[in-house]
């Protein structure tokens, strides 16, 4: 293998055999192309390209890798080349065997061949061999994964007829992340969106979902399943109509006995969101026209802000900007006494030296954890809760517990290449 690695490094410097195991690419953005003379005769070219694009996107959704289709660069610069053929094909020394048994194979140089004698079909055909499923499997090989004999793994060698919910399971995600690491990154805001719904019996129930926003796209995070929703991220304008399409600074839900209002903040302005109709208000029931200036509705608060959250314990909105915290008393419609204050005075570190020191990205009250989190970069600090303080009296009010990594708490919040965002 050493000799082979040296041989490879001469011919294709961007590829190494990976220090933590199998084969790995050493860069995060990989180019792929369906080779012109290798189109399938069973699906239209657009179908084939769409299915392959989706297959690559599925790996992006669970790893830091991004894939982009490149139909122009010299072939030498394309990392993964795919093609269909029958029998002796595409200069490959492993003949295909006709219909049955071998339906595709992958070479570690990044070539993937599909046997066009097999009956490949689209994702929902319900018959034949799903090209999507086979493509995801073969891409897994190119990325360095071997066959995995675990029921439910996409890397099983044998093809299993169509399963309705074809997705990558937890172990497959960990396997690819063992090679390329977990998905890390900053967020603009994190929040739980509360909805009131009526059951068939007319009762009102309250539901919530957790959302992570980053620039112009967002993920719904399924706390139960410890992962994002299948197929996320999605562009903001698809799910949150009317808020700025390139992202927001903060989401605040003022929820008390007398109030129930959702706001999005961006720059010097803010919007109120109509949760029932899933769109921003142009005019809210109180007659306010949106967007409004932050300074107009929250006198004393300096914008733009870094982030903000509503603390139901004292009915204050806490706005964060640089190293300052502005606590705004909703009922008094003014800054709380003594504010703004330095963030260290409002949220003191429990362990000296372990503190975000301002410029935080997101302040998030989680109904799942019943706790407040301050996020900055790839880290978060949990705010000491009342229960903690009952147990450990020495803990300061609103103290920040030692930091942890966001990706070890909320899993697989991964970017995809912008060209595949709208798939």
């Amino acid at each position, binding site marked *: *293998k050493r000799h*082979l690695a040296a*041989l490879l490094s001469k011919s294709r410097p961007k590829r190494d055999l990976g220090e933590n195991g199998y084969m790995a690419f050493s860069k995060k953005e990989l180019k792929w192309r369906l080779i012109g003379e290798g189109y399938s*005769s*069973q*699906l239209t070219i657009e179908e084939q390209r769409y299915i392959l694009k989706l297959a690559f996107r599925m790996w992006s959704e669970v790893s830091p890798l991004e894939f982009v289709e490149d139909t122009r660069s010299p072939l030498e610069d394309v990392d993964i080349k795919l093609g269909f053929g*029958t*029998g002796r094909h595409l200069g*490959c*020394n*492993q003949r*295909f*065997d*006709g*219909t*049955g*048994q*071998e*339906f*595709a*194979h*992958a*070479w*570690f*140089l990044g070539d993937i061949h599909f*046997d066009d*004698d*097999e*009956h490949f*079909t*689209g994702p929902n*055909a319900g*018959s*034949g*061999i799903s090209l999507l499923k*086979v493509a995801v*499997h*073969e891409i897994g*090989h190119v990325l360095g994964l*071997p*066959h995995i*004999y675990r029921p439910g793994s996409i890397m099983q*060698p*044998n*093809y299993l007829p169509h399963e309705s919910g074809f997705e990558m399971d937890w172990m497959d995600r960990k396997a690819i992340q063992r090679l390329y690491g977990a998905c890390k990154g900053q967020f603009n805001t994190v929040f739980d969106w509360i909805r009131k719904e009526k059951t068939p019996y007319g009762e009102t129930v309250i539901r919530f979902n957790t959302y992570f926003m980053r620039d112009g796209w967002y993920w719904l995070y399924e706390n139960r399943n410890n992962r994002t929703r299948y197929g996320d991220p999605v562009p903001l304008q698809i799910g949150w109509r009317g808020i700025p399409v390139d992202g927001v600074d903060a989401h605040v839900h003022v929820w008390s006995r007398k109030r129930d209002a959702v706001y999005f903040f961006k720059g010097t302005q803010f919007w109120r969101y109509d949760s029932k109709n899933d769109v921003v208000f142009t005019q809210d029931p109180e007659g306010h026209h949106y967007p409004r200036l932050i300074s107009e509705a929250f006198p004393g608060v300096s914008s733009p802000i870094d982030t903000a959250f509503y603390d139901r314990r004292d009915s204050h909105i806490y706005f964060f900007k640089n190293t300052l915290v502005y606590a705004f008393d909703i009922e008094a419609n003014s800054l709380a006494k003594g504010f703004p204050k330095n963030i260290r005075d409002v949220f003191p570190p429990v362990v000296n030296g372990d503190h975000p020191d301002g410029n935080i990205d997101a302040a998030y009250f989680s109904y799942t954890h019943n706790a407040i989190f301050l996020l900055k970069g790839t880290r978060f600090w949990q705010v000491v809760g009342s229960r903690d303080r009952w147990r450990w009296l020495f803990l300061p009010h609103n103290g920040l517990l030692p930091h942890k990594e966001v990706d070890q708490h909320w899993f697989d919040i991964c970017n995809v290449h912008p060209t595949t965002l709208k798939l």
Partner: protein
Amino acid sequence: EKLFHNRDHSDMQSLTSRQAAVITDKYTAELFLSRYGFMEPVNWEEIQPSESQAFLSALKEFQKVSGLPVTGVLDEATKVAMNKPRCGVPDKETVSSLAIPMTPSEEVQRR
């Protein structure tokens, strides 16, 4: 164009008779096992008793990873498993599966 009548081509009939050779006996099973890395390719001229032992242990390992009863016998269930549609990458990494496709003459020159 391959003949089809259904809009989604699901009834496409293969005009060619290319069918994968069905695995029915020890010889084809041995090819299968060596191709997917369960045993080294077999030198047919000189069969050693130890090689039939190699075939037996390779067969058992295949049965085990395929979730079949480990009988060491090339029974029907094992043949069905071997004939299923599958990926052409070997299940077990062998040196040959990592090799860059080379023509033999190149190898000779290199040495």
